[in-house]
């Protein structure tokens, strides 16, 4: 049943947010610490666990994959509700600070990524477990 997949996703999401809040409280911060990241790890482990026991039929997978495929549209909707007006109203301090921070980080990313050995490439070819619902999504 397709709902099993979506329910599994929802359970991982909720548990992850809960653990992230707990971690935040434990660390004394007023915010969630990595809740979504924890949820992602939970889902990865759940998939491995269920697949090993043959408990993951195609239809259940589709219940998760649909939402993974909805990701880009959701991001477009997210973009459409950014506070562009106040972002652009921030003036030179905000613009310079943002630009400088992004440029510096871009250079560091470029530097770190150039240290990676190119042996990772053949791995992408045998990437058999992509989301089938993304075939059209470029």
């Amino acid at each position, binding site marked *: 049943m397709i709902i099993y997949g979506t329910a599994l996703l929802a359970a991982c999401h909720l548990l992850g947010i809960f653990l992230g809040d707990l971690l935040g409280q434990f660390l004394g911060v007023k*915010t969630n610490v990595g809740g979504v990241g924890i949820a992602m790890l939970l889902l990865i482990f759940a998939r491995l666990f269920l697949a090993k026991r043959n408990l993951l039929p195609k239809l259940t997978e589709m219940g998760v994959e649909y939402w993974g495929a909805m990701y880009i549209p*959701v991001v477009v909707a997210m973009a459409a509700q950014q506070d562009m007006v106040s972002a652009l109203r921030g003036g030179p301090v905000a613009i310079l600070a943002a630009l400088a921070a992004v440029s510096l980080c871009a250079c560091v990313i470029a530097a770190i990524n150039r240290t990676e050995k190119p042996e990772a490439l053949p791995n992408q070819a045998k990437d058999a477990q992509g989301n089938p619902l993304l075939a059209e999504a470029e």
Partner: protein
Amino acid sequence: MLEILQKAAAGNGLVTAFAVVGLVVLLAGQISRRLTFGRVHGSAIAIVIGLGLAYWGGSQTGSHKGLADMSLFGGIGLMGGAMLRDFAIVATAFEVQVTEAKRAGLIGAVALLLGTVLPFIVGAAIAWSFGYTDAVSMSTIGAGAVTYIVGPVTGAAIGASPDVMALSIATGLLKAILVMVGTPMAARFLALKTPRSAMVFGGLAGTVSGVSAGLAATDRKLVPYGALVATFHTGLGCLMGPSVLFFATKALMG
């Protein structure tokens, strides 16, 4: 007629949002194919259209949630809000290859730390050069350069003034927008090709919204790897901003 249609759209917000976003994505795909001959990713164009609509909506209503503040497009707020965004991000984890993620675990953590400290230093230094020489303002603007959530959280914790807070949020928002729009253009320079490189990017570029949109517009397959790291960004920033980073700034500025 028009009134009834409007009422139907406003009363079914989320459904309207699906239709509107579908239209935007369709339009973006056509622009990508016809005008740029596939050189610019359809998703990148869709995100830029989204940001343009956000500007239009924001300047029409004068509030802070872009298009989502217009009653007709209220559903956009739900569809692109934190709940469904995080739900979709978590769902992408289903495609993660564990061996790939493991290989980049350590470098991802290093990138995360650098991605918090470096923007903070840059932001604080620029704040200082513009005359915000007290440790509280410097830290708040520096934290804003980490993400737009870390900024106000830090500012509230150390008692920054409202205008500095606004500046800090604006800095973070601009950073997110720059990452969204700039990533597909800079993808080659950033060497964004592999899961490992996406995790480094997720740690250093910061802001879930910037990273998730930037990667979506570059290569959808890389999204889960970048997001996995980036979602720890805000937490780490909120942890370090009002504590270690603020104390270091205070010690330095006296």
